[in-house]
Structures are given as structure tokens and as C-alpha cells.
């Protein structure tokens, strides 16, 4: 039985397009090496799962679950992340013009965009170990916004991820070293508010397909 093979999605911009906020070297390694490794390991785990399924090996199936979660999560998270970043100084990085609906919702819930960013940054800096910070929307009709974190490569589940920020050290270390606050402050200059608005309005299917 053969399973679907996932492949590395191309970046929607050049490796150096996020400079000076994120260096070309970081983006190249992060995309070509780290993201690719999650995909390679996800495909291997799914292949092993397919074999285990055909041989009805339940203990093998169970032991593969964490591998699928970690590597599948890594693939999902990075795919979402690349899309919710935009080239430095590009129009999509302007929240006013690119995300009017989302901006109104943020202001309604967090008081102001500045207040929201402050709360988001504090959450990012509070992550102990590897993980991600997300702005999410609940699936309820009210569509409440919330700042959440997921550990390691756990994906957001049951909520719509509007945008995510990778807080693994590999996401910033070559440029910011231990100054993760510098990375966290800088990332706001390359958030793709256009994609965030699209996910906020239409959910994730409209913005990202793996």
C-alpha cells in the first residue's frame, strides 16, 4: 500500500525577502533543512503506519502516533508560518490596509493593536523550551480571538490559526543569539496581515492547503 507523499512547499518569497528582520541564512536552513526534515520523517512515519495497518500491528500503530504528530505538526506549522510572513516593507505588512476586519476584532478584544502585540510578545517570551505562539480564532459563531501557545511541534487543533510565530531557537539563533526579545519585536515588521485577514474571514482552508 502506498501513501501520499508530502513535499516541501516553495516559499512565497525569496530567502532574503525578510531581511533585515530574518536573515537569508536562517530562512534557507529553516526551509530547506528543518522543514524538509519534518516532511521526510512524516512520510517515513506514514509509510510505516501503512505497513503496520496492513499487518494489523496495533502496537506499532500506537508507537507511530507521536512521530506523526511531531513531524506532521512540524509540516503544518511551518507551512502556515511561511504563508503568514511577508517581505519586509511589502504592502501586506500594513495592518491598516491589509486586515481591516481582523484589526477591528483585535481592538475590540485587546483594547488596541499595541496592547495585543504586547500581550502576544509576553506570551512568546514565556514559552519554556521549543514551541509556537499563535493568534487563533475559535470555531464558534462569535469567532473569539485568543493568544495560545503550542509546545514543540504540536499543531493548533480545534481552532483557526490566524498566524503563528516559531519560537524554536533555530528560527532566530543565528541572527539574534540569546536575544529572543529582539526577534519577537522584529517579527511584527514581517507579519503578513493580508493572509491573517484571509484566515480570519474564511478559515484555514481558504488560505493554506497542504
Amino acid at each position, binding site marked *: 500500500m502506498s501513501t501520499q507523499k508530502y513535499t516541501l512547499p516553495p516559499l512565497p518569497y525569496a530567502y532574503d525577502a525578510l531581511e533585515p528582520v530574518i536573515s537569508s541564512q536562517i530562512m534557507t536552513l529553516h526551509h530547506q533543512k528543518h522543514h524538509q526534515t519534518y516532511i521526510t520523517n512524516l512520510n517515513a512515519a506514514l509509510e510505516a503506519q501503512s505497513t503496520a495497518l496492513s499487518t494489523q500491528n496495533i502496537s506499532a500503530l500506537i508507537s507511530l502516533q507521536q512521530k506523526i504528530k511531531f513531524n506532521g505538526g512540524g509540516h503544518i506549522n511551518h507551512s502556515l508560518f511561511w504563508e503568514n510572513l511577508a517581505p519586509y516593507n511589502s504592502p501586506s505588512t500594513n495592518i491598516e490596509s491589509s486586515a481591516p476586519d481582523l484589526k477591528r476584532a483585535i481592538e475590540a478584544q485587546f483594547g488596541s493593536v499595541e496592547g495585543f502585540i504586547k500581550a502576544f510578545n509576553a506570551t512568546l517570551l514565556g514559552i519554556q523550551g521549543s514551541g509556537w505562539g499563535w493568534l487563533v480564532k475559535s470555531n464558534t459563531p462569535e469567532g473569539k480571538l485568543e493568544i495560545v501557545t503550542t*509546545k514543540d511541534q504540536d499543531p493548533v487543533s480545534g481552532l483557526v490559526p490566524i498566524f503563528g510565530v516559531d519560537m524554536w531557537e533555530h528560527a532566530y539563533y543565528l541572527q539574534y543569539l540569546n536575544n529572543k526579545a529582539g526577534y519577537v519585536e522584529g517579527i511584527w515588521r514581517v507579519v503578513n496581515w493580508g493572509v491573517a485577514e484571509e484566515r480570519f474571514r474564511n478559515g484555514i482552508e481558504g488560505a493554506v492547503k497542504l
Partner: protein
Amino acid sequence: MASLIRTSLRTGLRASSSSAAPLTFTRGKATLPDLAYDYGALEPAVSGKIMELHHKNHHQTYVNSYNTAIEQLQEAQASNNIAAQIALKPLINFHGGGHINHTLFWENLAPKNAGGGEPPSGALSKAINDSFGSLEKFQGQMNTALAGIQGSGWAWLVQDKQTGSIAIKTYANQDPVVGQFKPLLGIDAWEHAYYLQYQNRKAEYFKAIWEVINWKAVEKRFA
């Protein structure tokens, strides 16, 4: 009576901290311990730049944040605020764990010209052979454990305090080896421990680190 208890408590604390890890304290505050070697002394296995940042910045931040959390804990204790004391637990675990783990790590590393990489001897060597077959097999299993860590964390050779047997265990983030197990040898698998030199090639770091393992320090921890 009260002062007696306080004295014996203090003695107990000192004794246990010196046997587990000689952490240094000044007026009750945790402080950054000096390295027993120069930052560049572990090259080429670990670069001087990594060692400097790792010690002066990362470890120092754990020390500072631990001290802050303990101050807040003392305030919460003084005001009998139980909820605040419980809420501080993750911070104390993380930053206190970071302090303990790094202190043990620096000690179980040594430059090659100071015995780094020289294989263990005596009782520890025998225990490793009995438990894993050989030193090489142990290193292979430890490297597999390190490579399998999903996220940030550490791999440790630990000793079961009850049975005396040794085993490999991984711990997430800065969770310290406490309770049933005693830490013998720790290897830091956080990306900050290797990224500037090895980037995503972490297997190369795990392979190289054995060149600078201070087995004499590990033997002292093994009882």
C-alpha cells in the same frame, strides 16, 4: 528548638546540594559558577563562541530568573498566598532546573588535555558494560536518545537511587533529574548548545561531544 531545626535544615541543604551539584550561593542567591576551563578549551567539539554565550548569557539568565522566582516565592510564603506559591512552581522548575542542569553539564565536560574523552574506569566502566554491553553501545544508545528528543531537552545517564542500576533517560526542556534518579552525565540537546556551529546537523554535535566528556566527574557522581 527552632534555631536547631533551622541549622540542621541548612546543613542538610548544603550537604545535598554539594553531593548533587556544587551550586554556588551568595547570601542565599544562586550565582553563575565559573567554568573550570576556558571558553575555547572544548574546540573543535564545541566552539568558544557557543561556550561563552551558553555560559555567560543562557546560564546566567536561568540563574537570574530563578532568583527572581525564589524572591516571589518568599513573598508569597510570607503572605500565606498558597495560589501564588503554586503558580510559581513551573518557573522554579524551569529556571532552577536550567541552573542545575547547566552546572552539572559544565562539570561533566573537560578539554582533551584535561582528560576529556578518556573512557571511564573502575565500577562505572563495569556498570556501563553490564548495562549496555560496551561504552560504544552506550554512546550509540545515548545518541539515539538525544536525536529522538522532540523539542528542547536533555539526555542523561542516571542512576536509580533504590536499585543502583544505571539507565538513559531524556527530560523535556529544563526538567532536572530529581526524585528516583540521580544525574550522572548530562548532554544538552537544546539548539542553543550547538546551532552556531552545527546548525541542523545535530547528529554531528552528538558525535563530537564524546571527545570532551569528563568521565572522571561522572565517576565521582556514581556511587
